[in-house]
């Protein structure tokens, strides 16, 4: 098991290096010199930046400088916000995104297990059809559409009832968290509900479930110990992609709900072509996602004895 984790960690490091390299070269090929854009920039910042990034140096040199800075966890200084270090931006705003992401992942997973179980239980009857219809509608709605519709509805509700049932924008209290977290988790929940249902139905036909029934166990025990437990395994494997979807989905949701998360800053940096912030956050997000996928793999290994013992 430990060897396995070590090997995965190593390959994770290589992947992060690859992401950093790809980021560097993608940004390097941006037409024109990033510093020569018409952005308002005081001469001394420009000078500092040129020295810091060695923009007058040959490409190989710049690349090594870039890697060295990354290795030291130094993502540089924002191009557009004077004297603001990218590290500070990340440190300040990532926790907000992380909280939002964790809550929506929990909503998505718990919801998916519940809905999937209901759907599988009522297979081919109306609750199943209704849930499956909602699922396919939910996966067909882009995040910003869901966000806009929900804001619109809740706003109308607030107006109708004459008080703020739930705030539709902003950040600060747990009430501010509910709508964006739900919106952000919705398509993941829908996707995982489908998977959960399929997985439960597949397990329902497994030989070992017949064995469990032949043992005279209670329906409760059969469902939780035998069916649900095994059906959950495939759902764990999609947690990696789910985290990626929620992370990138957060860009739009943070923007629309006016949440001061890193995603919103990233989008704003992209719109303003703030190169250091773009590069820093891309590498940061890349590393974060690689680590998450690694974590999910390890969790899967712990939960599934076939993998835990075999490795």
């Amino acid at each position: 098991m430990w060897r396995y984790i070590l090997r995965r960690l190593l390959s994770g490091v290589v992947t992060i290096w690859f992401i950093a390299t790809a980021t560097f070269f993608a940004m390097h090929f941006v037409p024109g010199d990033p510093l020569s854009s018409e952005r308002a920039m005081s001469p001394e910042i420009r000078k500092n930046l040129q020295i810091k990034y060695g923009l007058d140096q040959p490409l190989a040199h710049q690349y090594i400088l870039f890697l060295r800075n990354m290795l030291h966890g130094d993502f540089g200084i924002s191009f557009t916000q004077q004297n603001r270090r990218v590290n500070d931006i990340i440190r300040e705003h990532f926790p907000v995104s992380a909280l939002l992401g964790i809550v929506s992942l929990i909503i998505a997973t718990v919801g998916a297990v519940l809905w999937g179980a209901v759907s599988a239980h009522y297979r081919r009857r109306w609750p199943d059809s209704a849930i499956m219809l909602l699922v396919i509608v939910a996966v067909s709605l882009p995040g910003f559409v869901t966000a806009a519709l929900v804001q619109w509805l809740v706003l109308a509700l607030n107006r109708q009832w004459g008080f703020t049932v739930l705030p539709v924008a902003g950040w600060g209290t747990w009430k501010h968290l509910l709508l964006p977290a739900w919106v952000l988790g919705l398509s993941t929940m829908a996707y995982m509900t489908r998977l959960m249902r399929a997985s439960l139905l597949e397990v329902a036909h497994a030989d070992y479930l017949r064995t469990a029934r032949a043992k005279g166990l209670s329906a409760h025990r059969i469902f939780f110990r035998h069916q649900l437990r095994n059906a959950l395994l495939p759902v764990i494997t999609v947690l990696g992609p789910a985290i990626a979807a929620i992370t990138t989905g957060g860009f739009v949701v943070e923007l629309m709900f006016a949440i001061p998360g890193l995603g919103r800053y990233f989008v704003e940096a992209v719109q303003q072509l703030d190169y250091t912030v773009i590069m820093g956050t891309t590498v940061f997000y890349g590393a974060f996602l690689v680590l998450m996928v690694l974590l999910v793999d390890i969790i899967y290994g712990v939960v599934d004895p076939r993998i835990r013992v075999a490795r």
Partner: protein
Amino acid sequence: MSESASSVELSNQATAAANQLLRIDQLTVHINTPHGVVQALRGIDLQLRAGEALALVGESGSGKSITALSISGLLPESAAMVGGDIFFAQQRVNEFDQRAWNKLRGSRIGMVFQNPMSSFNPSMRVGDQIAEVLRAHRDLSKTAARLRSVQLLERMRIADAAARAHQYPFEFSGGMLQRAMIAMAVACEPQLLIADEPTTALDVTVQAEVLDLLRELRRDSGMALLLITHDLGIVAQIADRVAVMYAGQIIEQGPVGALLHAPAHPYTAALQAAAPTIAQDFLQAIPGTPPDLTNPPSGCGFYARCKHAMRICMDGAVPNFELNAQHASRCWLLHPQCKNSEPSVDV
């Protein structure tokens, strides 16, 4: 017949009724499929005395597993018992609810399935899976159940049982897992053990071990055994009586010696002839295929493949002819008017 002889016979019959563990009358099961309703069982009659070993043989698809699943109330959702009765220990199980079934299954009826690898929960320790059945039916503490499951594994001649109990199914070999499965099935000392092709998925060398184990268990505990197989070699080793199934019917039933040495039905004879050459899969050895059970023939199901087929054979259901009190067969060849009354082995 003299007076005394008939009274002996009567008393025999009385004990037989008292000893009777399982009785199936005219069991009819239909299965809904996208291609129509499969008439999987078409009027099965079967009796099993306490401690008796009955072998149920027949080609794949003849309805053996469906019979076994009916007895334990485990028919798939798509299947329904549309006729007949099943009595287990004088109790009619037809209207059993889930609670009643759960009292019976695992406790008074143990089951062993064909594929041990897929019949164990892959994410649960083998010992826990055995302990689970003990805790469901016996008032045992967790530790006591664990201890007992290790003892059971030892009894099944699994080396290093304590460590093995702590392992997961995928760490076991097929034969070892099947023995663990048997341990699970007999953990609560059932009156009836149903083993559905317990050795089919195993290597030939391992098959013998499992069979030895089953024989030994039966000798020690006196439980009845319903052994499902398509290997007549196994039947001879272990069974008291044999029932041969074909296309959802029992077409011949009798004591193992009589049935194997003097088969009364051409199909049994064909099985006999096919068995030694291809032990595993004699399906190819009898030319032709069984009838389509969504639309079964009104006459003899074996008609299309039978060398002795007569005009009467398609003339409605074939009666069950009794050769003697123990031996019966559904074949017109046994009719006294039929001149060719010896079903020969050459098919």
